[in-house]
């Protein structure tokens, strides 16, 4: 077996050193009835690289890669171009095969990356500080709500109908088991909900999304101030982090916590994971944050260095009193995010965000010209909702037969509801030809 360096001679001499008769003898504490006599049944024996490649390659070939066809899917996961440099650097073994930087003297690489990542996230969101990442945007959202409960010592969250329903479900699942109230408003495809009316003296937070799940771009400045006046926090969720390159950031609107999905930078679609949850807060809440934090310090020679810090919040120290049970971050995905953002820089991120928006405007106009199709959004970033004269799920299947991935039917996110609505996302990866092909195919399918 190519990954196992011990030879039979090694094993024999090691057994002698241990004074054991056999490897099986070392398992003598396992109840005999539970010890298998030999390799487990029902599974094949080992394979060489070539055979594994063939087998997994044949499975991969049964999928339609989004990049192989015109593709307009978003709803919390976006196909952006990832520069070649990103994947080259994340595959450096010193990043890929290291673990949590528990020994800072031999982990300054990972630690400086995390410090820079935290700074980038703080800058993008317009917040004071950010942590070293969470599992994904949805778990980040749920952790933000639990943090608001701790900060306010209240136990009720108001979830906007514009919040991605998967984020809502992760939060309400936690609410049920962890023991807080989550009031989820009905879906709001055209907006118009009065969140503030629901805020009372038991409300810990209001959770909104920008752009919301239907693509609407909103200004939450007034809502933030009004929530805070009632002693509640405003949590702003962002599922398309690239929008932060163009839109007024949540921090400037007065958000207390930002919970976001960072996949758009540096990370492939990967059928939904692994992604990278972003988590940023106002400075005064730092000690109530979940997750890892990297901080600056000096070493014994007085030189600048970095360490994991404020770990007294965390489970390995505080055990049942920890702020969260989270033990990992999304390290390598955060690294990919950070490298991509570094490559873009100020000029690149602005242009990329403008490019996405301009293309989405063009696509919206092309779709609006298709008979029977109506664009619901006044304002949007790179994703918007269209109303179709037929059920969107069936239309998407028809488009797939024509080798076009034409967006996400809203009914897939809200079973049995809003069957005529379709979410369409457009990024820099979509060409003019892609957009024309989509509009033409949609005309055909709807005809």
């Amino acid at each position: 077996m190519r990954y196992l360096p011990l030879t039979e001679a090694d094993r024999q001499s090691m057994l002698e050193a241990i004074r054991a008769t056999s490897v099986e003898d070392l398992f003598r504490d396992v109840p005999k009835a539970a010890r298998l006599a030999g390799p487990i049944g029902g599974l094949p024996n080992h394979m060489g690289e070539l055979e594994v490649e063939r087998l997994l390659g044949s499975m991969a070939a049964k999928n339609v890669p989004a990049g192989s066809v015109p593709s307009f899917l978003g709803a919390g996961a976006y196909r952006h171009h990832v520069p070649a440099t990103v994947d080259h650097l994340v595959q450096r073994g010193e990043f890929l095969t290291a673990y949590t930087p528990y020994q800072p003297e031999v982990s300054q690489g990972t630690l400086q990356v995390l410090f820079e990542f935290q700074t980038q996230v703080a800058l993008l969101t317009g917040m004071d500080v950010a942590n070293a990442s969470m599992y994904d945007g949805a778990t980040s959202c749920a952790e933000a709500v639990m943090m608001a409960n701790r900060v306010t010592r209240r136990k009720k969250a108001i979830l906007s109908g514009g919040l991605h329903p998967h984020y809502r479900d992760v939060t309400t699942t936690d609410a049920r088991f962890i023991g807080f109230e989550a009031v989820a408003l009905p879906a709001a495809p055209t907006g118009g909900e009065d969140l503030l009316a629901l805020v009372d003296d038991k409300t810990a937070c209001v959770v909104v999304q920008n752009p919301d799940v239907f693509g609407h771009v909103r200004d939450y400045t007034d809502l933030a101030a009004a929530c805070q006046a009632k002693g509640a926090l405003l949590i702003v969720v962002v599922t398309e982090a690239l929008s932060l390159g163009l839109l007024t950031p949540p921090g400037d609107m007065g958000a207390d916590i930002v919970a976001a999905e960072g996949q758009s930078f540096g990370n492939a679609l990967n059928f939904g994971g692994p992604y990278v949850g972003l988590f940023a807060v106002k400075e005064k809440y730092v000690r109530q944050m979940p997750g890892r934090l990297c901080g600056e310090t000096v070493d014994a020679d007085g030189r600048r260095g970095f360490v994991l810090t404020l770990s007294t919040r965390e489970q390995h120290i505080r055990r049942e009193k920890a702020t969260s049970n989270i033990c990992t971050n999304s390290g390598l995905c955060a690294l990919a995010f950070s490298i991509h953002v570094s490559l873009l820089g100020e000029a690149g991120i602005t242009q990329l965000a403008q490019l996405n928006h301009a293309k989405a405007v063009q696509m919206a106009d092309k779709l609006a010209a298709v008979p029977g199709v109506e664009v619901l959004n006044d304002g949007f970033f790179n994703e918007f909702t269209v109303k179709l004269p037929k059920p969107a799920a069936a239309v998407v299947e028809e488009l797939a037969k024509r080798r076009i991935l034409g967006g996400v039917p809203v009914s897939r996110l809200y079973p049995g509801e809003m069957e005529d609505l379709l979410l369409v996302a457009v990024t820099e990866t979509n060409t003019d030809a892609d957009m024309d092909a989509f509009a033409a195919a949609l005309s055909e399918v709807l005809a």
Partner: protein
Amino acid sequence: MSMNNQGRPSAIPAGAASFDGVTGTVTGNRGLQIEEPLIFEQDSAGRTGVDLPDVPKVASRLGAVKPRARVGLPGLAEPQVVRHYTRLSQKNYAIDSGFYPLGSCTMKHNPRLNEKMARLPGFSDVHPMQPVSTVQGALELMDQLAYWLKTLTGMAAVTLAPAAGAHGEMCGIMAIRSAHEAKGDSGRTKILVPESAHGTNPATAAACGYSVDAIPATADGRVDLEALKAKLGPDVAGLMLTNPNTCGLFERDIIAIAEAVHAAGAYFYCDGANFNAIVGRVRPADLGIDVMHINLHKTFSTPHGGGGPGSGPVVFAESLAPYIPVPYVTHGKDGFALVENAGEGPAFGRMKAFHGQMGMFVRALSYMLSHGADGLWQASGDAVLNANYVMARLEDVMTASFEGPCMHECLFDDRFLKGTGVTTLDMAKALIDEGFHPMTMYFPLVVHGALLIEPTETESKASLDQFVDALRALAERAKSGDVAYFQAAPRLTPRRRLDETAAARKPVLRWTPPVPAEALAAE
């Protein structure tokens, strides 16, 4: 002035006061160890590392929100970015570069085949919300992984949704609570957790609204069965137990433990962090376990990536099988289907935005297929053999906490350092100078000054011998009274001991732009 063998002056020339006091070089660099400023300190306005197409000229439609003025990111060209991250990478210790015996973390070799497979566009470039007709291969892969995990554990069901081990624990405890609730049993408010448990166990139980009751250990490092029985009752929802446990020992009484837990109407959660010791040799279902998470990044070698992403599938016995979160794969009439909404069955809810850590699923299945049943048998055998070998070779100079055989890791405590003035931390730092990543320190909490060594099966005997020789020499040196040597370690790393107290007292968690000179002058 001395001259080197080429006749050049080798002393520092007079008047050159700019040599770094620590390294003795002008730059502060030390050969291959190159100092690297923050990315923000390398900014030049307008510079970028990407070339993008021109933005089409259309009227903006942002609605209520104005475009932001500026983000504040630095501008660097591509070669600068490549050099920045390359230099940073060289300040990291990694499995690729050396022995990484971090106990309880299973730092084994990460095969590059797995990376290649995960990057096949058919897996990496697939959107989670594509029509299921276009992702049949992705669902087949998830189904295959589920089959392997169920076969290796003997369990009835599996969820792939949780993003990491601790997330899997959360999932398992939620399932246990759902099952009690389904029976109308609301009186169970406690989870029992041994003192030796990972910190995530009590944190998870507490997060799920349970009170945590600690079970003491026996003198031989196992759960005290009688103490456990005394605490079991109608108020106990479940037991969370790591097996093999965090002392590196197999819980000999595990079947009796399971029976006692079941007799009390509670469920048996196993923390599968240490599954690598028994994978392919022992099926957890045969031990009476009801639910267990599996860290794909440990046992099945998906890379640790500097702290994640992990992946924590959870396997369930028949009794808990209905209570899994969405989404999950089913076999439909037109191939594989995906159940995505909790309303469609007894699923307890949702844990993550999409379908789980697909990128990790591909890597883990690639690892499993490469090993096969015979390779996994050999791998767990070698993992246990390596740990016992390290233990046997160190026993006479260090103090093993418990009698062997151990499983995949061996535990020492600091009794051998008593009276020397050298601590577990000092030993760890001295090991760094020898070119090793230290073992896990001060965990588990049940012994004093713990040193937990997990070699894994992917280390050669030569590598273990070098490590053992270094550790033996350090133990002797500590006993000889050379405290100063240890307290000054590490000496040879890019940074020496870091002031963690200062970092926590006045946290600096981000770079901030320097205050412009004119603003300072105005103050």
